[in-house]
């Protein structure tokens, strides 16, 4: 009990009575506000699931129609880099979860550190992705721009896979960049002492978004990189 009281005294000057300050007038309690925030965020994420779902559905259809052509593209995918990127994103998910935890326990320094780490992993991911895009460009595997495929019989249908590849990973990368901006906002707010155990909804909601982007990649990796079984 004693440490709670000391803690309360120590933080009183830094934090105004935040429970009141951050409680919107139309909510009865902070708990109710948090539940509403969470539900709203998940509703948004479901629309995102269906947005990506459209591309996943078209992938499923074309994969079924042109399986040999799709499988033949696997040798052009950089599997070690793709797997590394998956691991990098999982690292960023861990640091994001730790950032949320730090906010919930009012550890400001740890919160900022974990947010910056998350941004670092995000940047590494985008860097590797950019390198892979460059590889595809050099190998003439960008659909439409002088697309050239060794196995001529697959040229038309393999191009569909590369179109899906760029559409899906590109959409994913755009989500990462948006997440990058959101994390920057969180770092600025955290430096201004906005978050504490009384108020951490923005950290948790942006965390949900970040984890969702991670989940999309968890599906993209096996679907785009590992089609061809043996190589």
């Amino acid at each position, binding site marked *: 009990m004693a440490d709670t009281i000391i803690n309360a005294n120590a933080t009183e000057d830094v934090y105004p009575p935040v429970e009141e300050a951050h409680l919107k007038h139309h909510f009865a309690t902070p708990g109710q506000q948090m539940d509403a925030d969470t539900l709203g965020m998940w509703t948004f994420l479901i629309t995102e699931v269906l947005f990506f779902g459209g591309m996943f559905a*078209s992938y499923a259809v074309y994969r079924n129609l042109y399986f040999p052509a799709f499988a033949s593209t696997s040798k052009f995918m950089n599997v070690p880099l793709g797997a590394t990127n998956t691991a990098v994103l999982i690292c960023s998910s861990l640091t994001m979860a730790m950032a949320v935890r730090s906010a919930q326990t009012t550890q400001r320094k740890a919160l900022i550190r974990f947010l910056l780490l998350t941004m670092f992993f995000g940047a590494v991911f985008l860097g590797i992705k950019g390198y892979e895009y460059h590889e595809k460009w050099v190998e003439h595997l960008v659909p439409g721009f002088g697309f050239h495929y060794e196995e001529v019989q697959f040229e038309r249908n393999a191009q569909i896979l590369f179109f899906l590849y760029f559409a899906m990973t590109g959409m994913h990368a755009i989500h990462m960049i948006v997440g990058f901006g959101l994390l920057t906002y969180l770092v600025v707010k955290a430096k201004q002492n906005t978050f504490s155990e009384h108020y951490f909804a923005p950290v948790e909601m942006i965390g949900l978004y970040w984890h969702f982007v991670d989940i999309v990649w968890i599906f993209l990796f096996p679907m785009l990189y590992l089609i061809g079984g043996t190589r």
Partner: protein
Amino acid sequence: MTTAAAHHTPVPKVSTLVLVFVTLIVATVVTTLISYIDLGEWNIVVALIIAVTKASLVAWIFMGVRYTTSLTKLFVCAGLVWLSILIALTYSDYTSRNWIYQARPWSQTKAPYFEDKAK
């Protein structure tokens, strides 16, 4: 106090988060290695089972679905139901189109159905 003061959400343990992280990394390695073994049609099945497991772990622990209200859980499940409708119905449409007759331009159409009617 182990629960955050703002509401009733319990703060997850660091060990839980790290354990999930390790599991996800191991699953990534496994899915990559399995892709080098030819399992025929089962490659994609195994890959998707691992992916679904990983995604569920992220959602359940990292995203804290386990701590959310029943209403939020219901919303999450509803999202998955709509996603499965989207994929299943689109997929079934494309796979079953040729079962009746191959679609052709009108000029070339000799659909047996219409010829039978003409007689």
